[in-house]
């Protein structure tokens, strides 16, 4: 054996004061296998850099926590006054102590669900078209268009909704109310389909119209997430399905959709999170009411964000607290939806590859 272990042996022998040569060699082998303590030799700029990076992370966290804590503290003041009626009360009059989010929360959820009901088929259809059907030449153009639409400001969608959609959608609303009015959610009070003079104004400024506009806003976002996942579906499995005689739809159903399931659910939920928080487009379209409005085709709706935009101005300090409580509820709802979405995306097969 080389000289080095021998010196070690001698040292060990000296230290242990015992043992035969063989045993010591064995001990050396064991000692040599211990992991070294790795310490990066850091110099002063490096330490400074580490602390600057850590510091900016801390600043970000403290700002973000400040938002959360402020919302919580202010909101709890309102919760304390309103008590459990905060959930059940429909009207909003904080100065008399009679306020609750029953109406606005229902409205928010209804607008978001209407939006998703339209956005989901649109988004999945567009994503499938771009990733599976579109000619190669226009694929990149379509991707750019859809991504660009996700960046178009919401006020633009609001304008389109108010001035274009509101007037053009009324016959559709009327048609649905006439023929599907027996379904409770499509019922419209004060509308008689047999009355030839019935005015379609009862259908204006409804949850339905706001939902369609929000759907157009969130569909590009959901669609681009879904498309990204669909294009990652492994080529080998696609070709395998086709080689076994699958049609294009057969291949999509057996390979692309199962692979992209996480992306489909996650993208839809991210869109839902965006739809819950949308303010200006909804604010422009709806005419606010403070009762639970379960009829989505009927005039009058309200959402939490529209409530804040409506009532923040010249509000007393307590009214601000009440709005904060409403904002906190909205934030928590969005938070839950987003976390579930990102967990689903990360857990899915496609998400684990793409990071």
């Amino acid at each position, binding site marked *: 054996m080389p000289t080095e272990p021998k010196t070690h042996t001698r040292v060990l022998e000296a230290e242990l004061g015992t043992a035969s040569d063989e045993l010591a060699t064995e001990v050396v082998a064991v000692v040599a296998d211990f992991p070294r303590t790795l310490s*990066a030799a*850091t110099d002063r700029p*490096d330490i*400074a*850099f580490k602390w*600057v*990076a*850590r510091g*900016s*992370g801390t600043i*970000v966290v403290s*700002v*973000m*926590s400040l*938002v959360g804590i*402020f*919302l919580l503290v202010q909101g709890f003041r309102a919760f304390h006054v309103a008590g459990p009626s905060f959930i059940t009360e429909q009207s909003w009059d904080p100065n008399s102590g009679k306020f609750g989010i029953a109406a606005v929360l229902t409205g928010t959820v209804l607008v978001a669900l209407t939006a998703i009901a339209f956005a989901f088929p649109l*988004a999945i*259809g567009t994503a499938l078209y*771009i990733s*599976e*059907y579109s000619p190669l030449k226009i694929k990149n153009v379509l991707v*750019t*268009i*859809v*991504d*660009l639409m996700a*960046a178009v*400001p*919401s*006020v*633009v969608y609001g*304008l*389109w909704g108010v*001035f*274009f959609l509101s007037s053009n959608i009324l016959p*559709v609303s009327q*048609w649905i109310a006439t023929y599907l009015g027996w379904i409770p959610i499509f019922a419209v009070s004060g509308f008689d389909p047999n009355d030839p003079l019935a005015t379609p104004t009862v259908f204006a400024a409804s949850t339905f119209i706001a939902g369609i506009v929000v759907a157009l806003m969130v569909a590009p976002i959901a669609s681009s997430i879904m498309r990204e996942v669909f294009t990652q579906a492994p080529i080998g499995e696609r070709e395998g399905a086709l080689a076994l005689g*699958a*049609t*294009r*739809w057969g291949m999509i159903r057996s390979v692309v959709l199962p692979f992209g399931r996480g992306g489909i659910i996650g993208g839809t939920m991210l869109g839902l999170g965006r739809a819950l*928080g*949308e*303010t*200006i487009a909804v604010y*422009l379209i709806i005419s606010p009411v403070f009762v639970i409005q379960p009829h989505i085709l009927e005039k009058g709706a309200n959402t939490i*964000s529209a409530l*804040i*935009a409506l009532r*923040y101005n010249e509000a007393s300090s307590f009214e*601000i607290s009440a*709005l904060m409580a409403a*904002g906190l509820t*909205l*934030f928590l709802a*969005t*938070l839950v939806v*987003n*976390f579930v979405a990102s967990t689903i995306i990360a857990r899915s097969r496609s998400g684990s590859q793409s990071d």
Partner: protein
Amino acid sequence: MTTALVKGPPAVEVRRVTSTLRAVDVIRLLGCAGASIGFTAWLFVYALPLEGAIGFIVIAYLLFMILFGLLTAFDENGPTVRDRMVSVVVHSLGFLMLLALFSVVFYTVGRGLAPLGYLNFFTKDMSNAGPLDPLSRGGVLHAVAGTLIMITISLAISVPLGIMTAVFLSEFPGRYAQFVRTIVEAMTALPSIVAGLFIYATIIVFLGFNRSGFAASLAITVMMLPIIIRSADVVLRLVPGNLKEAARALGASTWRTVWTVTLPTARSGLTTAVILGTARGIGETSPVLLTAGATTFLNLNPFSGPMTSLPLTTFTFVKSPELTMIARGFGTAAVLMVLVVLLFALARAIGGRGPGQLSSAQQRARTRQSRDDDYRYRARELGVPLSVARKRVARATHAIAKPAAVVSGALAAAPLAADATATEATAFMKWVRHFATEISSTIRFAITERRRPRAKPAATPRYRRGSADAAEPDNTSEDPGS
């Protein structure tokens, strides 16, 4: 049979059509479209009390689907029928989405064209123009200026803070970084109106400041920061680990690695992250609505007096019942959209590729830089000024590039060394000869390899490592400069 086949005249090979679209498909589609439109028209005119363009389209579409399914089922089996029907549905959904998106853009821009024709729309504010004034008075200069000021302040805060935080998340992983990442992820869910409400409640109600452009910038920053951090974090994590490891192996410290390797590699992705965050920030109405306070005056001071932005001005314009104000609102929205599209195009031009993927211009720049480095090393090796080395290498390379003229090139290069000392000339000649050998052996290697793809590679390449190694120490030892 077989012999006949072999001995017979060779069959003419017809190129097979690989297209998935057959003539019968097209005919079937057109026929179904015609039939469904005709049938719907008959229903609308004679059969049923129906009206309205949207109803016509919906019923025609449903009829088309039924007819198309039936007609395909005559010739094809079940899976094929389903495939064709799904194909039609997917195409129409994609088309519907694009139609809706185009409708949004072109409706807004189309109605916004009227005020955009007036130059004063871009050069004046609304201080002298009332709701009843024609479009030839007043403009949105105050909103454009306000938007630019607000977004500049927001970027000045959020870009350094955001990128530094993203660097922290990717370079110093650990429990704390994971905690920061979770908080940031949570904050991307913060609705923009709640961000506005937070700034309104703290800065304006609690601390008693007036509404100002700065408060609005803060609200936009709170909203933009998580977006920028999240996308920058993703981009930074995509930087190949071997690049960073190479830097560390060369002895670079953490911060030198980040500054010279990580950030430059991820530059395009980071730019995209920032620009997309900017596009979001510019377009947000609600935080500005709560914190900036609308104004009709041009105000260039973000710290005092109310300010307005393009989306907020759009919002206030269209709430007015006057038609000219609504037209102004559409004009402002068109300006805003042009701004966003420009930013988006910029993001596409700069980014759109992963870290380390270079455009052809960047590739050329890298090549040039690498060649310059080579000149520098040669100049140091030979102890001559950079320009001389460059000239020599260029000529020599040019001559050697033609394998036939290897020797003559070397001879031709020799007189060029006249201005240098004799030892340098020898060293230079040695280097030229070495270089020539390498080039010619590479070429020979390439030729033989191409001719015999599966040949034993050991026999062909002739790199004279020995002579090259012998030449290098000579250079350094005889170098008068050192």
